[in-house]
């Protein structure tokens, strides 16, 4: 299988935080959601992927190549959206187009115009007058306008209203129609990722908890609602985590290990993440 992004045993140590032997693989033509709490190491991982910080050990391959070895040519094919818009504030769209034309050999001016017109960005407005939504749209427009084969997005939808987010997610889904294209997206807004992702990777305190196809995860896990005494009858290896309330217990369980007449509701990706890291971990 061809992988758009492959990470093997990636490790980076800081004082008080270690990104610990990260392994993940994003098949070409797919979208991978990268989830985890604040400070889990998502941005650190993305910075390592882009060679903005130096890894302690491990290997990173983007489109089959190591980024630190084939920088220029490879980076033409990577579209990046950071968690902020990084253009200096006095520039406007026309100037950004002019500059990017000189930076990317593959810069597609007409595609750029098409996207910024679609997003309703004004040509002569400097970046500093943009709202957060407009800034993110500008970053996404740039990431899509130079023959990118993989998009790497760090919190590209956070801080945006649902309408803008939906608009942006549609653009991502259009991008992925070409089977050579892939997306690696980190986000706090798990419902967004649930809408578009094929794979979900969950990072917690610098370690990967799971890295699976979304459908498989949704199939595998469920939320069991029962009384405390009923929970005790359940095979303990089936319980990932649980939460007690006035009405009984809710537990994230592996569906196939639950026998009998107990009621298991479908779990969302958000449920899975929350039960893994929150209270009552078995």
């Amino acid at each position, binding site marked *: 299988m061809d992988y758009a992004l492959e990470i093997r045993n990636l490790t980076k140590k800081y004082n008080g935080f270690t990104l610990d032997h990260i392994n993940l693989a994003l098949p070409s033509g797919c979208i991978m959601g990268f989830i985890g709490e604040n400070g889990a190491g998502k941005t650190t991982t993305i910075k390592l992927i*882009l060679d903005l910080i130096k890894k302690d050990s491990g290997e990173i391959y983007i489109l089959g190549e190591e980024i630190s070895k084939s920088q220029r040519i490879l980076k033409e094919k990577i579209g990046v959206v950071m968690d902020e818009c990084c253009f*200096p*504030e*006095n*520039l406007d769209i026309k100037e950004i187009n002019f500059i990017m034309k000189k*930076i990317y050999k593959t810069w597609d001016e007409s595609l750029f115009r098409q996207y910024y017109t679609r997003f309703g960005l004004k040509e002569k407005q400097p970046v500093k007058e943009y709202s957060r939504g407009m800034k993110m749209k500008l970053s996404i427009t740039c990431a899509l306008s130079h023959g990118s084969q993989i998009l790497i997005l760090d919190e590209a939808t956070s801080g945006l209203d649902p309408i803008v987010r939906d608009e942006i997610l549609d653009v991502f889904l259009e991008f992925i129609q070409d089977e050579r294209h892939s997306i690696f997206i980190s986000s706090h807004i798990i419902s967004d990722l649930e809408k578009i992702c094929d794979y979900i990777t969950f990072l917690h305190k610098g370690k990967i908890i799971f890295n699976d196809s979304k459908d498989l995860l949704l199939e595998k896990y469920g939320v069991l609602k029962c009384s405390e005494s009923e929970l005790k009858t359940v095979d303990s290896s089936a319980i990932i985590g649980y939460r007690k309330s006035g009405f009984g217990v809710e537990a994230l369980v592996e569906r196939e290990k639950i026998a009998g007449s107990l009621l298991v509701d479908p779990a969302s990706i958000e449920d899975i993440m929350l039960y893994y890291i929150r209270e009552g971990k078995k």
Partner: protein
Amino acid sequence: MIGLILKDIMNLKKQAKIYILLLAFYGFLAYSNKEMSMVTVMICLLNVMLSVTALAYDEKANWEKYALSMPITRKDLIMSKYCLGLLGLGFGVLVSIAFSLIIPGVNTKVNNLMILYASLAGLGALSILFPLLFKFGVEKGRLMMMLMFFLPTVGIVLFSKLNLPPPSIETIEIIKIGIPIFVILLFVISIIVSNIIYKKKEF
């Protein structure tokens, strides 16, 4: 790299308006005093400040980490800033020469020497400043810039208090040739040091 320099020039366009106004003001001063030296020094200082401003804008927007996700190397980022500094100083030289031609009563021979040494001073200042700015960022770098202008002044004042005999003509000749060589060497070393600093920098 051309893209990076263009980005700085376009982003500094607001500053450019103030820059031109200041130039006009200094031009007027030079015209009324029939004296160019202060104007030449001010133009150089302005150019050094412009390079620092360009870096400050980059830092504010976190441009560098974004730029490094593009087909741009760390070396390109460094070199674009040095080129911008050189372009600014070159432009300053042209403006100073233009002023000296327009303003009557200016001794062009003396003035050309003045322009040369002011530009060398500017180049020297950039050579020391850039590695500091790349290492410590613009905020701390600004403080160091103040120190950099302050310490030589103190040095010169102290030196003049020592009542040393004036240097011989031969010594002055050596200094005249020595300074340009020293500054060019400093510039080259500065580029090397900046590259080493940037290579290790984490964004």
